């Protein structure tokens, strides 16, 4: 109980959202009914839809190879000049003379990859810990939760930097891993809370009384009911992952090879040119803010929709 009981209660309170439904309509169905009418959800979902679409179609949209320094002749370190917008290059070039618009378009792919992979890895680790702790209880629970507590007591960015600094060879993947590990304790707490709430619930007791195997009680009766809060946290986590990855690039971690563009990395490397060429930072920052906002809006609206208090 070290990082504040209340914090745990906050995370644990999330896990209460999906237990106890007996209104005759499944929770998912009634949640979906409310979601469809919620403007917050619609705006967020549209943003994410557009983002995914962009990531899928960007190879067709991008005119140039993002790795080629096509405008290198217009770059001057001494004069502090970078290529301005021109025909064929609507946004000009970056500090190496690479085409900015093509980099932005193709950057959507890597950015989506970073967000999804980091969240999936974080969720996988957290799920394992949470299921272990919640399903077994007792000393397993105590041990797992102590580890989670230690991880939670270090400020998240420091934890991410610490993990990232372990690798000699910095790459996009080290950033993904660093961001993922920060999410592990959060998912771990959440799942443990949900599992504990489930253990004492009637349908689990009934399943046990009928002699259902322990493993299938956990995976077929407990887990599906824990999904709601996990989906909410994952959606919010996607937004956090993109922003954290950008912060790590800003602090100098991450890919040394920038031929494959990623928005967070573009924003991080634009810092040295901010006073003279803010547009280098504005474009990737705008994209990041929009996408992070989209995930946040969807996450918040899902949380509202899955809250049993709002059922009518």
């Amino acid at each position: 109980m070290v990082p504040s009981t209340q914090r745990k209660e906050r995370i644990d309170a999330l896990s209460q959202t999906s237990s106890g439904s007996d209104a005759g309509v499944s929770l998912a169905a009634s949640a979906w009914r409310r979601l469809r009418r919620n403007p917050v959800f619609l705006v967020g979902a549209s943003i994410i839809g557009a983002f995914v679409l962009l990531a899928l179609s960007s190879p067709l949209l991008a005119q140039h190879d993002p790795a080629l320094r096509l405008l290198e002749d217009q770059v001057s370190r001494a004069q502090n000049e970078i290529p301005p917008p021109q025909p064929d290059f609507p946004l000009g070039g970056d500090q190496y003379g690479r085409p900015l618009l093509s980099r932005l378009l193709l950057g959507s792919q890597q950015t989506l990859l970073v967000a999804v992979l980091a969240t999936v890895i974080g969720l996988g680790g957290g799920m394992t810990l949470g299921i272990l702790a919640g399903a077994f209880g007792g000393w397993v629970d105590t041990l797992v939760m102590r580890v989670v507590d230690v991880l939670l007591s270090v400020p998240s960015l420091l934890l991410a930097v610490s993990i990232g600094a372990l690798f000699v060879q910095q790459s996009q993947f080290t950033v993904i891993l660093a961001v993922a590990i920060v999410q592990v304790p959060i998912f771990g707490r959440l799942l443990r809370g949900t599992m504990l709430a489930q253990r004492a619930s009637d349908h689990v007791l009934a399943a046990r009384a009928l002699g259902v195997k322990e493993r299938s009680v956990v995976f077929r009766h407990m887990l599906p009911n824990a999904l709601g809060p996990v989906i909410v946290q994952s959606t919010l986590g996607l937004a956090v992952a993109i922003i954290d990855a950008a912060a790590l690039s800003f602090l100098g971690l991450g890919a040394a090879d920038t031929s494959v563009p990623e928005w967070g990395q573009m924003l991080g490397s634009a810092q040295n040119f901010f006073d003279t060429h803010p547009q280098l930072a504005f474009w990737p920052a705008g994209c990041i803010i929009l996408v992070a906002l989209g995930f946040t809006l969807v996450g918040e609206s899902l949380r509202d929709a899955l809250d049993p208090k709002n059922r009518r």
Partner: protein
Amino acid sequence: MLRYTIRRLGQLAIVLAVLSVLLFAWLRSLPGGPVSALLGNRATPESRARLVERLGLDEPLYVQYWNFLQRAASGDFGVSTGVQRGTPALQVFLQRMPATLELSALALLLAVVVGIPLGYLAARRRGSWLDNISITWSLVGVAVPVFFLAFLLKYIFAIELGLLPVSGRQEAGINATEVTGFYILDGILTREWDAAWDAFLHLILPAIALSTIPFAVIFRITRAAVLDVAEEDYVRTARAKGLTAMVIRGRHILRNAMLPVVTTIGLQTGALLSGAVLTEQVFNIAGLGQALSLGFQRQDFAVLQVVIIAAAMVYVLVNLIVDLAYAAIDPRLRTR
């Protein structure tokens, strides 16, 4: 209550002990290390070996850890090898702590002073334009990377408009007397009003950048708590008794709604340090955040150890105090 406190303190000690062991082992598994950072890649094997021996890095890990603990007990946390070469790590920490505390305190103050009243008003006028604007603002605020916001503020208000200082903690021309290391406080203590005002001006932009996330969280929790409490039975009872609106709002609603908000404030201490690392970098403030990013770049074990353990300690302690205050206020929690 006393038993609860003792138990919580015991748990705190365990977490910090585990953290220090993990941190120690992790730092020593980093690629490179202080020897490479100090001598560079062209050093002769002999000089490398000498330095390894002098720093005690050739001992087995548990021996190194034991030595570290023994020295730490007497206040010796080793010597900085990268951030401020040759200065004791503890001194580096103490020199830089005031800058970060000053910045974080101002940012937190800003978040509380704006977030709580706004959260209360938004909840009272649910669905009004004020409510909608505040919610939108808090959602957007979380989506903006802190360091980008810091750059943006610096660019607009310092570089383009020239209204506020660009970086640092104080103008070079001001010869302020240093008393505590907290520049604003120092200026007030020594009655050097100019120096205090100047230090305050330097803090405005970084504090605004740093306060966005705590503000968003405090605002949302306050709003939710006020909405929850307003529906409680005791509020209805108070209305039925014919108490004045002032008493109901102050004593019944606000007081009970503040409980989760206080908790949130405690939890924000960790987020503040994360944000300070980025903000100090942008505004070039010589605080702990800067020491951390420099420490990572230059593999300065001694400084990283002190700063990270201190950060975790502050975070854990603040939250312990919050929990205890909570237990003191809410009798239902004491039985745990």
